[in-house]
């Protein structure tokens, strides 16, 4: 596994832990289909939450949240309905959250959680 993929995996695990502590229930990880991948799927009450996790080891190439583009958000919007259809689940609503993880390897990652970015 490449170092960047390892970092990504570690970041997603950190984010999942963080979200569970915040009261969300993680129901799926790294769900893939022909149009892309969802990092984390969570449920907040009766709301479906699609979570995009961005992990960086430093801010040298910009803040992780800055890497989430309009195109990516559009794709996540589409993936949300695909996931719900694939799992025959019904929700009162859905939202997309973004989580940034700044993990410089010292064991104290900095986490930033933004709710409802679209």
């Amino acid at each position: 596994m490449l170092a960047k993929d390892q970092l990504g995996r570690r970041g997603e695990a950190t984010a999942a832990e963080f979200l569970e502590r915040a009261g969300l229930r993680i129901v799926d990880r790294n769900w893939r289909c022909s149009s892309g991948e969802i990092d984390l799927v969570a449920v907040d009450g009766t709301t479906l939450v699609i979570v995009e996790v961005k992990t960086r080891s430093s801010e040298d190439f910009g803040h992780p949240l800055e890497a989430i583009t309009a195109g990516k958000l559009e794709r996540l919007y589409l993936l949300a309905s695909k996931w719900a259809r694939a799992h025959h689940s019904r929700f009162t609503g859905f939202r997309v959250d973004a989580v940034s993880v700044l993990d410089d390897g010292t064991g104290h990652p900095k986490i930033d959680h933004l709710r409802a970015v679209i």
Partner: protein
Amino acid sequence: MALGRTYSVSLVGLNGHIVEVEADIGQTLPAFVLLGLPDASLNEAKDRIRAAARNAGVPLSRRKITVNLIPASLPKRGSGFDLAIVMAAWAAAGDVRGCAATVFLAELGLDGQLRPVRGVLPAVMAAVRAGHPRVMVAEGNRAEAALVPNAEIRGFSSLAEVALAFGADASKVQLPPPGDTACAEPLEPGPVPRFVRDMADIAGQAEARFAVEVAAAGAHHLMMVGPPGAGKTMLAERLPGILPDLTDEHAMEVTAIHSLGSERSCSELRRRPPFESPHHTATAAAIIGGGSGIPRPGAASRAHRGVLFLDEAPEYERRVLEALREPLESGTLVLHRSAGTASYPARFQLILALNPCPCGLANGKGIDCTCTAQQRRRYFSRLSGPLLDRVDLQLAVQRVALHDYVGGAAAESTTAVALRVARARQAQAVRLAPWGYSTNSDVQGKILREELRLPRSVTGSLDRALDRNLVSARGWDRTLRVAWTVADLQGHSQPDADDVGMALSLRLQERAA
């Protein structure tokens, strides 16, 4: 607090409008939105600001920053809003405090240095008038901004210093290393050599010298007609030297126009009347102002409170000359363009110089002249009657005689003439104070005919000229204004018949020749 507020100034022509800069931080993905009719250079501020803030050690919030410039309907342009926007964004994030009642005027470099901007003087004047005397500017603009009375000015050379002054966390702020501020040094124009062309250089020409003195004393417009080499240009160039220094108020106006048009920041008020001599190929836009977007001041406005000298006047395009008629009457130029309307002051003293005919030799008996009568008429007809009617002094300049030119008596110097002019101006100011005027050329004809009316015995020659249609009604008023100036120069308390006769001859001389 997720809302920050600062102030800046948007200039439309010479008029500054206070602009409120609001910044809001929304809890969503990083973005920077600038609202309120920014132009292209102002929209670039978004990227300049992000880099400058990071290099100052206090990066902008990693959220959506929405900046609104109020009033939103007023088009805003230029880079002078950079500092106000970054301070509002920092205030919204809680990084700085106490900037809500402060005006910021500076452009940012990517490294966080503050760069001077154009037009700081009129902008600060507008801020003070609008009740916002606290203004922060780039160090390079500090001297210029400090010229405005009652303004509390502070100059900074880097964004980091501004952040510290407004309570940013000192442990985070990264001050640029000293010595790295070379390009933020104030752009000192250096000592301006007060090079004055001296009246003593002019040999002979006693009559022309007197006419120039009268023009200076009463701020009268002057036309000089003479053959090439007679010294018309020399005379015109020496006129600014004998004009008195500008008053505080006038100096402020002149400096403000200069500040708009100049790349350099000015550090002191321009006390000397400006002298503009545009080339005769100049377009109407170059003379009266113009350009794309908000129109910029032209030579006529840059000559405000000074001298606009048109050498070879008939060679100018007709529409250029005609365009000068309105400012000659009203003292302002209002320019309309699609992007907005700008009004610039243009109360200049017009000096026209021309040859008596296209070949230039038709003086005296005109024996050497090779022009046909028609050519001569066409040459003169380019200066329209309505324009000439506004010129109080119309002078024929002869070639200098040999005995004056070689070994003639030493001519009077600029210093001596300027002293007489200053005394005459003083006398006018005292006499005209009740009506709010300062020079004879401003006085309304009605006042000359009523309150300042002269006895019939004094104005007899002028009245006869009006009867015989040698002067128009406006010409009658204008001749009287010159007569008052002649009297002021001689130290008379009011014109006598000789002064009126002299004024009439100065006005009609060219036509007689």
